[in-house]
């Protein structure tokens, strides 16, 4: 299943927008299918946005499960760096 970020949220900076994405992803993941989350046309996400979306899902379903089911696509270099940096925080946290 493909979800385009800009169809779901109007910004990628706030917790409110992040929570809106969380709700859509959670519903889509209930079917068990892999999701291609397109960042085409979206701004680079803040950690607040990611915490309310990806962070909530990771807390609920576990990091490995999340990474296997949510696949960001059409990302710029900066978006990719930010997403990897965010996930690295979970990996580092899991080690401590």
């Amino acid at each position, binding site marked *: 299943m493909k979800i385009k970020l800009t169809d779901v949220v109007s*910004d990628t900076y706030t917790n409110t927008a992040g929570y809106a994405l969380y709700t859509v992803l959670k519903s889509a993941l209930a079917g068990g299918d892999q999701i291609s989350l397109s960042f085409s046309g979206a701004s680079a996400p803040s950690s607040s*946005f990611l915490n309310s979306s990806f962070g909530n899902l990771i807390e609920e379903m576990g990091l490995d499960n999340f990474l296997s089911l949510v696949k960001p696509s059409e990302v710029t270099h*900066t978006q990719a*760096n930010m997403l990897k940096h965010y996930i690295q925080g979970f990996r580092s946290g899991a080690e401590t």
Partner: protein
Amino acid sequence: MDIVIKGQKDYHKLFQVIQEGYQGSPITIHLYHSFLEPMDILILTEFIIFQLNEEVEINLRVDNEKVKEYLDAIGLFEFCSSNYHEPNELKEIASYSAMPLRRVNRKTMNYYIGRTQAYFQTLCDRKDLGMLDITLSELINNVYDHSNSPIDCFVFSQYYPQKGEIKLAVGDLGFGIPKTVNNYFSNKGAETVSQEDAVKWALKLNRTTQSMPHNAGRGLDTVCSFVKVNNGSWKLFSDNVKMMGNGMRNHFFDNPIINFIGTVIEITIIVDNLEELETMEVLDW
């Protein structure tokens, strides 16, 4: 009251007036700078706004004619007006390749960042300006999540074509990072730390999603990480701490501006070091 500002150290006079709760005759600031960095502009703006909120009239006298023209163009003199209302529309200042000085909150953040990126994109063709989005949003979110600033948050950004740099600054008059971190430690029953150690702690990657709301204490770590990748630089002034660095190495000093209130962070992005604007089909985690 007259306040003479000849250099950065003189800003302590502004903060002292805020701390002492001045109320009385108009304040005239005599400014003798020959060049102003974005953080200078924010410190002046914060003082002006704070005093206007206290119903103290402010006059700004600028010695250097070019500096005066510059401050006029970016909107600082307008801020001194007691009946000033920010226009809804944000229009770039092409003569200085800058965006106007703005009070930004969570509702207006998306518009401010979007307009700023769109304008700088015209000056930095094909460069991925995502770092601008991320650093601005992290710093603005930090103000609203942690600082409890009485004047919200002020933002200024400018492109310097000869240097190939974008500078942006975000400032507030809130608790400051050291107090915020130590309040967090105290509330958890942990021992408080020195102001310098408190800022160092805030720069580290913290996975504290359950105990801290919103950006989970990851804003400064994220900014630091992007400054490092860009080989840019940043300066931070908060309470008694001054920090300067390039992300890889951050150096800490006693803040030369005594009585400093809140936090000001200025970031320099090296445009040549930004990635080209292109996308990859799938991100390999």
